[in-house]
């Protein structure tokens, strides 16, 4: 009783002492071998999976043992685990448990008493008490041993709970650290750096690596390493991402101690994978899950052995922590990635808005003028101004369609404006100030050519594909960036030398839908490379420039045409005046001539009657000679306004009609008349262009008056072979309702004096002029519908020989054949 009580008392004391867990187990075993007949006490631990046994503690401490594990499948303890009962092995039943006795530690012991170490719930292992002599414990001793085993179980359970709690706390602290790091930043690069470090630190790894792939582009958008990472790591992680591998641990195989055999040799590595090549670092990998279109992989490498742990392998606990960290950082990384994307987008947006606003200002400046002289300067200043597009230099080349070359029209170089830089009172050009400045600058004269400039000004680049990138840009309508002008075979070396270019861009200038020139842009001062973004901006700018230049060209053309038209019109008015004066003179002559003839005639009769009276005779003679003088003056006036045949030349009738039509454009538009022209190629006619133009002007005026509420004017020219000789014919057909029948027969009659046709004079002039030109006027009148005038003129070749025979009284007017 006392021995048993003493043992229990000591056991309880050891079990509750302050010494370490391992020492307490050892202390209790040391107490047990003091029991009578017990020579060896062994504590077996059951693995958590309950499939192997492992020797944990041995007493006496002098016994040597190794920590080999014994698979339960081969041991006789199987029943013990199931039954949780004590077992006494004696020489009588030792054979059944021979596997157990192969362990060198148990050699020579014939008796072994095995007792389960358990509490009311868990079986932790077995306590083995061995003896070479017999063991025959009384019931009482067995009960005492059961109590001691309860103490052992208590120690183990407490220790395990303690270890577990410590681990949980450690895990929580790891997660806390990781969380703190992740929360500290939104910057992707910063986040990656920090997580790499913290992961390696909390897992006790020598290195960590992180890879994130964009699943759309299959490109790695994050590749980061921390600490020591094997060179092959990235390639393997990439494969893992592509193959969407699950989380795994790969530990390096630990070499087996030589000469061991038997069931203990089956001691294996924790890995469920096959053993790996020696060169391969032990590592763990977990996949990172994202909501967005990313896939990632987080790996740690080479565990650092701590606190004398038997091996430096990664365990399931490590993997679970890594996986948890992976989940946390995945969402943090995704946030950072999104943030980065948004930031980039915002930056791009801001840049775009800025560029668009600049382009808008440039556009406003371009709109202010249609001057072909000012526009190139606005365009080039806009490109080179710091507040504009800010390039160092720009040259505008325009195409010379006739010679098929590109010629430099104007250029601009960025000017540093020190006044602006040093004087804060002068604001930078923002918003509308930019356009205003551009317009002001354009008025100033620039680019006075000095020596090199003069040479450059004369440069002509042929428009062939092999004359350099500018010509190609023009021909293909494409923009180009040349990185190195000196080595690039596509450049024009003459141009490169003249401008001393390194890197430049060539942008086609498109007006309407035709390329009209090329802009060369470079940064020859600050050497900034020209980017695709720059090219895009320049292309937009060149597009605006092209439109403006095209408009200016058109405006220029219209201006010139207008000027010509004005001159023609003035000339026509002049000739119309002449005709009117002629008409007046002719009318006047007629009116004066009749009474003059009467006076003269009767005076002559009087003179015959009074031949005797010499006094009266002299009076009559005076009157007669004065009347003759007046008649002579009248004849001279009439002759002066007669057809000036000397001015006759060869003309294309189509052109004359077109010019006359041009003079009527306003009236035609005002009356909403549509004009349909059908010109046939015609042989030349011979005549006075201003008179002929007058013919068509009068006819068009007639048609316009007839179609004051709109209508259709159809003009057609053709060659009519005619019965005798060919005519050049123009048909003028309107929809003005035609001419009332009662007026028709008199419309050409200038002598018809019943004055019914007020405006008939115009048509009589038409008739007179055409008659003078040996032509004819025909009418096709369709009352209620419209009228067609046919103006028929002989060909120049027909007219001239005839004219020679009819030159009575006008010998002095030789036709001008040398036109």
């Amino acid at each position, binding site marked *: 009783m006392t021995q048993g009580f003493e043992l229990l008392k000591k056991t309880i004391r050891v079990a509750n002492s302050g010494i370490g867990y391992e020492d307490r187990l050892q202390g209790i075993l040391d107490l047990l071998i003091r029991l009578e007949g017990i020579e060896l006490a062994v504590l077996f631990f059951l693995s958590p999976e309950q499939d192997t046994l492992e020797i944990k503690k041995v007493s006496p401490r002098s016994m040597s043992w190794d920590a080999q594990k014994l698979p339960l499948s081969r041991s006789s303890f199987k029943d013990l685990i199931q039954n949780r009962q004590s077992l006494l092995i004696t020489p009588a039943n030792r054979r059944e448990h021979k596997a157990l006795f192969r362990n060198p530690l148990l050699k020579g012991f014939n008796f072994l008493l095995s007792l389960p170490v358990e509490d009311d719930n868990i079986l932790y292992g077995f306590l083995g008490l061995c003896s070479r002599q017999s063991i025959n414990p009384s019931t009482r001793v067995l009960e005492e041993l059961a109590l001691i085993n309860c103490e052992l179980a208590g120690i183990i359970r407490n220790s395990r709970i303690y270890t577990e709690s410590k681990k949980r706390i450690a895990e929580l602290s790891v997660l806390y650290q990781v969380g703190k790091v992740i929360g500290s930043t939104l910057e992707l690069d910063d986040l990656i750096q920090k997580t790499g470090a913290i992961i390696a630190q909390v897992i006790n790894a020598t290195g960590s690596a992180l890879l994130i792939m964009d699943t759309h582009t299959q490109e790695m958008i994050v590749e980061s390493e921390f600490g020591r990472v094997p060179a092959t790591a990235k390639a393997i992680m990439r494969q893992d991402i592509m193959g969407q591998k699950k989380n795994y641990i790969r530990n390096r195989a630990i070499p087996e101690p030589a000469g061991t055999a038997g069931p203990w040799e089956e001691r294996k590595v924790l890995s469920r994978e096959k053993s790996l090549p020696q060169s391969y670092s032990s590592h763990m990998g977990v996949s990172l899950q994202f909501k967005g279109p990313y896939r990632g992989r987080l790996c740690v490498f080479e565990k650092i052995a701590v606190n004398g742990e038997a091996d430096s392998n990664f365990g399931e606990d490590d993997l679970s922590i890594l996986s948890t960290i992976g989940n946390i950082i995945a969402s943090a990384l995704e946030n950072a990635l999104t943030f980065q994307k948004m930031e980039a987008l915002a930056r791009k947006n801001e840049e775009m808005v800025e560029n668009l606003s600049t382009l808008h200002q440039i556009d406003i400046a371009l709109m202010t003028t249609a001057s072909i002289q000012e526009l190139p300067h606005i365009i080039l200043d806009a490109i080179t101004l710091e507040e504009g597009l800010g390039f160092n230099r720009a040259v505008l080349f325009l195409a010379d369609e006739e010679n098929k070359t590109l010629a430099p029209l104007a250029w601009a170089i960025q000017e540093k404006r020190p006044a602006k830089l040093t004087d804060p009172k002068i604001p930078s050009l923002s918003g509308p100030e930019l356009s205003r400045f551009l317009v002001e600058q354009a008025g100033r004269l620039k680019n006075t050519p000095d020596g090199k400039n003069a040479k450059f000004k004369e440069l002509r680049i042929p428009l062939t594909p092999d004359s350099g990138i500018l010509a190609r840009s023009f021909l293909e309508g494409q923009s180009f960036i040349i990185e190195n002008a000196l080595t690039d075979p596509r450049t024009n070396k003459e141009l490169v030398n003249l401008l001393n270019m390194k890197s430049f861009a060539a942008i086609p200038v498109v007006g309407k839908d035709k390329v009209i020139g090329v802009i060369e842009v470079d940064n020859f001062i600050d050497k900034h490379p020209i980017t695709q973004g720059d090219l895009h901006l320049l292309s937009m700018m060149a597009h605006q420039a092209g439109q403006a230049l095209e408009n200016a060209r058109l405006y220029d053309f219209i201006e010139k045409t207008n000027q010509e038209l004005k001159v023609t019109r003035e000339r026509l008015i002049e000739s119309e005046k002449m005709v009117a004066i002629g008409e007046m003179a*002719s009318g006047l*002559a*007629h*009116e004066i*001539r*009749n*009474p*003059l*003839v*009467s*006076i*003269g*005639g*009767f*005076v*002559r*009769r009087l003179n015959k009657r009074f031949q005797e009276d010499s006094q009266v005779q002299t009076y009559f003679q005076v009157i*007669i000679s004065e*009347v*003759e003088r007046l*008649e002579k003056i*009248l*004849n001279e006036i*009439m*002759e002066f*306004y*007669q057809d000036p045949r000397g001015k006759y030349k060869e003309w294309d009738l189509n052109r004359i009609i077109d010019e006359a039509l041009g003079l009527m454009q306003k009236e035609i538009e005002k009356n909403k008349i549509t004009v349909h022209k059908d010109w046939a190629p015609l042989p030349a006619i011979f005549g006075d262009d201003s008179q002929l133009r007058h013919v068509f002007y009068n006819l068009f005026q007639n048609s316009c008056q007839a179609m004051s509420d709109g209508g259709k004017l159809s003009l057609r020219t053709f060659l009519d072979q005619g019965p005798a000789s060919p005519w050049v014919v123009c048909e003028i057909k309107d929809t003005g309702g035609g001419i009332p029948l009662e007026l028709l027969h008199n419309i050409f*009659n200038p*002598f*018809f*004096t*019943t004055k019914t046709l007020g405006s008939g004079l115009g048509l009589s002039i038409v008739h007179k002029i055409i*008659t*003078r030109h040996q032509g004819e006027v025909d009418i096709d009148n369709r009352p209620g519908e419209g009228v067609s005038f046919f103006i028929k003129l002989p060909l120049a070749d027909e007219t001239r020989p005839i004219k020679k025979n009819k030159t*009575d*009284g006008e010998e002095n007017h030789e036709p001008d054949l040398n036109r």
Partner: protein
Amino acid sequence: MERKIMNRILIADDEEALQKLYKEEFEEDGYEVFLAGNGKEVLTFLEDPAGHPDLIVMDIRMPEMDGISTLRVIKEKYPQIPVILCSAYSEFKQDFSTWASDEYVVKSSDLTELKEAAKRLIKK
């Protein structure tokens, strides 16, 4: 004196003073002169073939019916009667042949040219 058949001239002009001048001058030269004030009167006069003149002297600008229109009718109906256009318009002298008149005389106080033309045409 041997009575000679007098040549008949029809003068068409709307100016009464000129009618009187022509009439007196041609009668003095031995012509029988008839007068008309416009083209219509000329055509009326010509309706009687027995009274056809040997010559018509006609102004161009006349009321009711002008000389050119009248000339066109005369040349169509009575091509045998010679016509002298006698007008104040000198500029049409060069074109008179296109109007098919036999002579074109610009009016003048000196009637020599007209008289010679008349003599020439009647002789034919």
